[in-house]
């Protein structure tokens, strides 16, 4: 693994606080070990389920066992009569005490604008209908078994094809159809049709990406405490978004937001699954409030696989038109998104982003995508790492590979003719994305070179092939004005606060959260770098609505370093200026005469060049809090807070390559080598960045090969309720030949030129594997339209192609 930064020269001056970062000897750009690792390694992490000291009651969520039905009977008599029941809540009590949850992002035409907590009409297997509380989890399960329920079954709508068929049963009869809403991005259908009609060659495919379960190793968990005297609800929750979580809870429980505190302990992974408040989480808080007690709930794995929202669930009819020279004259996609039983807080978002991101790094004469969001009797979908962009990459790069195959052109040549060149940037696409900086052909060339000598074997029972594809990731969501225009009730800004304490230590507050991605370390590096102090002086506080800045998006959408880091870049520059001014006042010289010297991890010292007088960083901080010698009579508190609303999105990019083997006798695919060439601008911590990319690639291989949250096509009941059936990538899924390298082209949007990278590693992974399989077995290339490429599916294609015998 290598990190090869490139770009403009060093900048460490307060005059240009936003300049791109280069290794300056400061902490930015260094692979320092992560600040939290020691306690995690000692087993002293503090995850939500670790907090209870034995005083909390435990909740079990009662759930629908049917995919669609009316709850006709909810008899808690026997359960309540059991001495161990502390509380049993059914739909009627829940309705009496709550309001529905708000939605956040409604697609055009969407009339469903709230999320019911425990409706009597259930629309997916696993939907909450009640809650049981007892002294322990096992006892709560015992009591839950005593609740008697009855359902009048309704026909289940499984999959969007069934939902859109004539005469399909309606998931929400009150809306008159199963379409929740629709939208068009880019050129109009008419314009794209005209361009396609004039194309020399058109490739059409039905492309899909399966439903997937987040499967963070730590499931969702909650500890809620209601203090009757002060009427305060304190919630320790495994969430990526403490502020929206608080807002939703306050709305649902009819509280003021300042009655609710949401604090985020250590998070055992999230991947988008913890970006919204779920109904079951709300019910646990309701129980705490009704009981005036602490109530704990930790989702079990079956719930995580079936009742937590899911990701993806998309199919598309996609067409690519090319002229006689192989230039892309038109791209069209009609995307059907499976939102499930109801549109979750941002449930249509991934499909809209897929449409928005349909073009990737290519030029098209015309391009547009339509989205139709469809209700089905499945658990709702929502944000999942790669958010629409992985789906777009799948659609686009399957089409490109198939076009090359049909035209008999090398795919590399076809891509080269259509890639946006570095000289064309900034470039605005047909869907109005403006790419800022980069060199997409260079990245793709590196990936192609990586597999140039990879084995291609087209005979025998083990075939081998390889492929390379480029990708683009929109990062740093986002300009608030863009979100407003998209009808999304969310601000895209972040606030960063730096406090220099009276002992010289530095406390940083940001609205993003740590979920294993190492953001606390990256932010500490940024602040230490900007202030010019050793990393050891800096502590980072995240994820507490009582103390950390309000944030809508918090840590998702590959934005933490870009937006929160951007705010702290600026706050750091300001704080550095203030500390220098205070030091100058103490040393009786001008701020320009003062230099801050740091020797290793020793305490930094201010030195006046003219007089050689010195004062330690801590002395200056201490006097600052006393208010002594302050240059500005109105400013005492040694805090700097900067709100940063990014002026645009900033586009990271990559090209990935894979070499695969396909066993014609079993349909099994082995990824034998994998290469990722990424550019996310300057890296704050290359070690962490590589970890993010490696993890994202593995998650992408899961989509490519093993993971699918499948439903029984007739009953709508989940088929994958256990990790035995929902198969995560195993160590052997990820090749040991995993090669990661970086270039660093600074972006123009965020201070420091940073671009995001939390998700980019998974965008090309499924399609580069599929394209490599197509290279190995061109006989089945046409049919590689959906993931996962499970051995059974691949073998079926091989058999149909006459390559495998039954």
């Amino acid at each position, binding site marked *: 693994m290598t990190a090869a930064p490139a770009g403009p020269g060093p900048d460490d001056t307060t005059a240009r606080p936003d300049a791109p970062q280069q290794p300056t000897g400061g902490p930015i750009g260094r692979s320092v070990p992560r600040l939290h690792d020691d306690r995690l390694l000692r*087993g002293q992490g503090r995850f939500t389920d670790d907090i209870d000291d034995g005083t909390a009651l435990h909740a079990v969520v009662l759930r629908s066992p049917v995919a669609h039905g009316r709850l006709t009977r909810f008899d808690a008599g026997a359960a309540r009569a059991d001495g*161990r029941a502390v509380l049993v809540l059914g739909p009627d009590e829940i309705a009496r005490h709550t309001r529905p949850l708000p939605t956040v992002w409604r697609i055009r035409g969407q009339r469903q604008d709230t999320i019911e907590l425990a409706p009597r009409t259930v629309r997916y297997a696993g939907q909450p209908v009640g809650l049981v509380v007892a002294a322990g989890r096992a006892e709560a399960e015992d009591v839950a078994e005593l609740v008697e329920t009855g359902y009048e079954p309704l026909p289940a709508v499984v999959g969007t094809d069934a939902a859109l068929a004539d005469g399909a049963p309606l998931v929400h009869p009150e809306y008159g159809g199963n379409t929740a809403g629709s939208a068009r991005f880019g050129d109009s259908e008419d314009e794209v049709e005209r361009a396609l009609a004039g194309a020399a060659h058109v490739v059409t495919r039905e492309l899909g990406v399966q439903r997937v379960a987040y499967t963070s190793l730590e499931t969702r968990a909650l500890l809620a405490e209601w203090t009757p005297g002060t009427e305060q609800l304190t919630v320790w929750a495994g969430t990526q978004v403490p502020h929206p979580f608080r807002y939703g809870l306050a709305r649902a429980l009819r509280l003021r937001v300042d009655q609710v505190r949401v604090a985020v302990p250590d998070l055992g992974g999230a991947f988008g699954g913890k970006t919204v408040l779920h109904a079951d989480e709300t019910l646990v808080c309701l129980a705490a409030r009704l009981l005036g007690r602490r109530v704990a709930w930790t989702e079990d794995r079956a719930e995580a696989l079936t009742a937590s929202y899911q990701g993806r669930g998309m199919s598309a009819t996609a067409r690519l038109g090319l002229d006689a020279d192989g230039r892309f004259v038109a791209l069209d996609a009609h995307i059907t998104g499976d939102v499930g039983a109801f549109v979750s807080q941002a449930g249509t978002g991934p499909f809209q982003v897929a449409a928005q991101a349909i073009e990737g790094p290519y030029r098209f004469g015309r391009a547009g995508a339509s989205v139709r969001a469809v209700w089905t009797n499945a658990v709702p979908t929502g944000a999942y790492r790669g958010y629409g962009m992985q789906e777009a990459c799948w659609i686009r790069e399957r089409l490109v590979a198939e076009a090359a195959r049909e035209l008999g052109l090398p795919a590399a040549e076809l891509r080269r003719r259509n890639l946006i060149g570095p000289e064309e940037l900034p470039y605005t696409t047909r869907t109005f994305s403006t790419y800022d900086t980069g060199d997409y052909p260079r990245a793709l060339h590196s990936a192609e070179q990586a597999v140039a000598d990879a084995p291609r074997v087209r005979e025998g029972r083990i075939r081998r092939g390889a492929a390379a594809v480029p990708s683009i990731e929109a990062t740093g969501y986002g300009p608030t004005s863009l979100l407003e225009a998209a009808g999304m009730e969310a601000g895209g800004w972040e606030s960063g606060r730096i406090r220099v304490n009276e002992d010289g230590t530095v406390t940083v507050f940001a609205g993003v959260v740590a979920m294993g991605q190492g953001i606390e370390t990256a932010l500490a590096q940024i602040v230490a770098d900007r202030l010019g102090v050793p990393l050891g002086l800096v502590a980072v506080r995240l994820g507490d609505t009582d103390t950390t800045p309000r944030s809508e998006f918090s840590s998702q959408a590959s934005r933490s370093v870009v937006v929160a880091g951007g705010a702290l870049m600026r706050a750091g520059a300001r704080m550095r200026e203030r500390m220098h001014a205070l030091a100058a006042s103490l040393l009786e010289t001008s701020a320009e005469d003062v230099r801050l010297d740091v020797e290793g991890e020793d305490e930094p010292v201010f030195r006046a060049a003219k007089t050689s007088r010195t004062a330690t960083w801590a002395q200056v901080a201490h006097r600052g809090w006393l208010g002594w010698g302050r240059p500005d009579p109105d400013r005492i508190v040694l805090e700097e807070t900067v709100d940063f609303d990014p002026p645009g999105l900033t586009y990271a990019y990559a090209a990935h390559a894979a070499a695969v083997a396909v066993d014609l006798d079993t349909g099994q695919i082995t990824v034998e080598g994998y290469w990722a060439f990424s550019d996310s601008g300057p890296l704050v911590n290359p070690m962490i960045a590589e970890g993010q990319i490696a993890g994202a690639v593995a998650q992408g291989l899961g989509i490519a090969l093993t993971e699918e949250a499948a439903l029984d096509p007739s009953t709508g009941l989940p088929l994958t309720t256990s990790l035995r059936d929902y198969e995560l990538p195993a160590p052997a899924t990820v090749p040991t030949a995993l090669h990661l390298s970086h270039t660093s082209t600074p972006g123009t949007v965020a201070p420091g030129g940073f671009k995001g990278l939390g998700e980019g590693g998974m965008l090309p992974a499924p399609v580069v594997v599929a394209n490599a399989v197509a290279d190995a077995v061109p006989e089945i290339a046409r049919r590689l339209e959906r993931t996962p490429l499970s051995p059974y599916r691949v073998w079926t294609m091989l058999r149909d192609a006459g390559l495998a015998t039954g």
Partner: protein
Amino acid sequence: MTTAARRTVTLTVNGAARSAPAEDRTLLSDFLRHTLRLTGTHVGCEEGVCGACTVLLDGEPVRSCLLLAVQAQGRTVETVEGLADDGRLNALQRTLKETHGLQCGFCTPGVLMSLTAAEREGLDEEETAGQVLAGHRCRCTGYAGIRAAVAARHRAPGGPRQAPRGGGAEAAG
């Protein structure tokens, strides 16, 4: 049957004798986490697949979610809390940190216990990175950093076979 039988479970955990009441049905993972408050052992699936709850029972790696606490009566259990010496990371823990072998840290305690047993047993790198790691699921790292840690331990002077055997904290040094 609604009344759960309870009995006192006595065992040695990280070198210290511990004794506490447990229901017959209480899982060892819950007994360690909620009764003994050793929350370093994590629970990820309660069906033996993910490996996060792996502890050492009489020196052997086992899924604590697939054992009843009463089955550990009189036995010796080692958990992640016993690895560091007076708060100082042991060599395996340090290596995992250096190779970025953890992200969210949820699977990490189980991985550490399996690798500890593998080192004591003297398993080679192939067996460790193959058979032993196959018993764990990590959603964050793509296993790259964990495999790098295994490789680094096998390259280290003295190698992983130096890992001490025992029921308690690692000897200093």
